[in-house]
C-alpha cells in the first residue's frame, strides 16, 4: 500500500501542473473578484492607517508626521462635541425609533383585514430617494409649514424644528424614523406571523390574557431580531452624516455635527485628509470593539434560550 502510494506520488513539478489544471477554472473565475477586493476594499482599509500618519498634500506629496494628526484631533474641542452629538443621535434613535417597528409589526399582524395594504403603506417611505426625503421634510419643518400648522390645532406654539439648537437633532431622528422604520417593521412582521398559533391557543386555554400572551409568547419569539436590529441600528447611526449635512449642515451652532460629518467636512472642505483618515481609524477601532461586544452579548443571549 505504502509503496504503491509512493510510486504514484508525482514529482513536485508535475503535481503543481496537475493541481493547476484541477484548480484552473476555479481560480480563473475567482481572480477578478480577488483583485477588485484588494484594490478597492482591502487597500483603502489598510491604507487608512498609513494616511492617518501622514500629512496629505496632492501637490507637494505626503510627508510622514507620526502621531501628529491624532494629537491635533484630541486637542480639537470640536472632536468631543462631535462625539457627544453622535452619542445623542444614537440615543435619540433608540428612544424614538428602535421600538416603533416591533410595535407596528405586532399591531399589523393583528389586523383582521387590509394586512397586505398596511404592509405596503408602512414600506412606502423607504422608496423615497434621499434627496426627495430632505426636500419633503424641510418643507414640513418650515416655520410656517404643515407641522407647525398642525400644532396650532392643539393651541401649541410653533417649534423651530431645524433652527432651535435643542430640537434640531430630534427633528432629524423623527425624519429618519419615518424613512426607515417600514423595512424593519417588515422583518419583525415576518417573524411575528411565523409564531405558531397553537402557542397562543394553549396559553389562552391556560387562562393567559392578551398582554400576557404578548409578553410570554410574542416577545420571546422575536428576541433574536431585537438584538440583530439593535446591532444594525447602533452601527448605522454612529456613522450617520448625510441627513445632518442635508437638513442643517451640522448647525445650528454645531448642534448636529456628528462624528462622520466632521470627518467628511475635514476631508472635502478643509482638505485635511490626514486628520480625517485618523478620525476614520479611531471610528473603526471603536465600532469594531462595539460590534465584538454586541456579538458576544448576542451569543450569550442565544445560549440562554
Amino acid at each position: 500500500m505504502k509503496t504503491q502510494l509512493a510510486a504514484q506520488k508525482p514529482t513536485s513539478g508535475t503535481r503543481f501542473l496537475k493541481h493547476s489544471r484541477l484548480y484552473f477554472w476555479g481560480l480563473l473565475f475567482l481572480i477578478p473578484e480577488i483583485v477588485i477586493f484588494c484594490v478597492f476594499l482591502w487597500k483603502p482599509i489598510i491604507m487608512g492607517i498609513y494616511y492617518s500618519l501622514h500629512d496629505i498634500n496632492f501637490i507637494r506629496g505626503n510627508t510622514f508626521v507620526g502621531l501628529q494628526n491624532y494629537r491635533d484631533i484630541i486637542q480639537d474641542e470640536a472632536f468631543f462635541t462631535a462625539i457627544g452629538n453622535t452619542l445623542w443621535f444614537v440615543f435619540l434613535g433608540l428612544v424614538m425609533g428602535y421600538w416603533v417597528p416591533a410595535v407596528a409589526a405586532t399591531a399589523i399582524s393583528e389586523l383582521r383585514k387590509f394586512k397586505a395594504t398596511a404592509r405596503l403603506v408602512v414600506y412606502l417611505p423607504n422608496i423615497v430617494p434621499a434627496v426627495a426625503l430632505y426636500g419633503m421634510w424641510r418643507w414640513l419643518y418650515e416655520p410656517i409649514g404643515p407641522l407647525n400648522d398642525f400644532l396650532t390645532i392643539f393651541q401649541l406654539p410653533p417649534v423651530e424644528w431645524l433652527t432651535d439648537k435643542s430640537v434640531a437633532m430630534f427633528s432629524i431622528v423623527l425624519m429618519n424614523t419615518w424613512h426607515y422604520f417600514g423595512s424593519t417593521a417588515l422583518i419583525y412582521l415576518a417573524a411575528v406571523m411565523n409564531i405558531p398559533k397553537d402557542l397562543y391557543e394553549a396559553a389562552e386555554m391556560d387562562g393567559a390574557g392578551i398582554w400576557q400572551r404578548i409578553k410570554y409568547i410574542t416577545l420571546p419569539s422575536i428576541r433574536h431580531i431585537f438584538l440583530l436590529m439593535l446591532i444594525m441600528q447602533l452601527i448605522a447611526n454612529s456613522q450617520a452624516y448625510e441627513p445632518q449635512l442635508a437638513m442643517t449642515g451640522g448647525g445650528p451652532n454645531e448642534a448636529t455635527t456628528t462624528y462622520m460629518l466632521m470627518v467628511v467636512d475635514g476631508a472635502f472642505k478643509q482638505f485635511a485628509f490626514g486628520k480625517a483618515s485618523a478620525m476614520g481609524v479611531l471610528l473603526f477601532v471603536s465600532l469594531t470593539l462595539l460590534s465584538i461586544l454586541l456579538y458576544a452579548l448576542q451569543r450569550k443571549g442565544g445560549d440562554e434560550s
Partner: protein
Amino acid sequence: MKGDSHQERGIISFHDFRRRRVKIGYGVMVVMLLAVAWTMIYPFLVTIFNAFKTKTDIYTFPPSLLPKDWVWTNFGEVLKYVDLGRHMTNTFLIFAGNMLFAVLFIGLAAFSLSHLKIPFRKGFTLFFMCTLMIPSATYMIPNYLNLQSLGLLNSYWAFWLPAAANAFWILLLKSFFDGIHKELFEAARMDGASEIRCFLQIAFPLSLPIIATILIFGFTQTWNEWYWAGVVITSPEKYPIASVIYKYVLSGETNNIQENVKFAILTIVMIPPLMIFAFLQKYIIRGVNLSSVKG
C-alpha cells in the same frame, strides 16, 4: 371563513372578541394604525400636490393640502434649472456599468466558491466575508485618496469597478448557487460543456430571481447616492440626478428656484422608484427579508 377561524387567529382569539374591552382595544389599535398610515402617506401628498400649486398658493399660511388652482407649468419650468434628460442618463449609465461589473465578477466568484474546485476555499470565503464586518464609513477617506491615486476621480470607472467589491452580494449569490444541484453541472460537463458555459447557460439563467433582487438593490443605491457621487465627480455635467438635485435644488447654491418648482423636481425623482415598487414588489419584499441576514 368561520370554519377557518382556528387558522386565522392571532394573539387575540375570536373568543376574546366577544368581550367589550377587547373590542374597544382593537378599535383603538385600528385608529392608531390609520393615524400611522396617514403619517406615512401625508408627506407624499404634500410633495405631489405642492408641485401643482401656483407661487402665491404655496406661500399661504395656513397651508392647504390641495392646490387652489391646478397648474402644470411647474414641471416645464424644471427644465430651466435642471437638465433632467442628461442627468438621468448619467445615473442610468452609472447603474448599468455597476450592474454589469457587479453581476459578472460577483457571479463568477460566487460560482467558483460554490461549484468549482479551488484550494483554500475557507480562506477565500473569509477574505471576502470579513469586509462585511467593517463599517464602510471608516474607510471612506482612504477610499477617496485611493481613487485619486488611481486617477479614477471624475470618471464613472470610480463607481463601476468598486461596484463588484460587495461581500453582501457575493453572499446572496453564493447561497443561491449552493441550492443548485451539483449533478446538473456534472451532467453538463460530461456532455463537454466548459465551465464558462456551465456558468452562463445554467447557473446564470437559474439565478435570475436573485439577480433581479440585486438589480433593484443596485438601482435604489445608485438613484439615492448623492454625497459620494458629488465628491467623486467634479464636473457638474457628469453628475447623476441625485447629486444635481442636492447641489442646485437643496443646498441653495441656486437660490432662485421657487418652492413649487422644487416640488415638481422632487416629484419627478420619486417616480422611477415608485414605478419599480409598483411593478416589482415581490422582489423588493424578498430583498428586505434578505437584508436581515446580513447582520
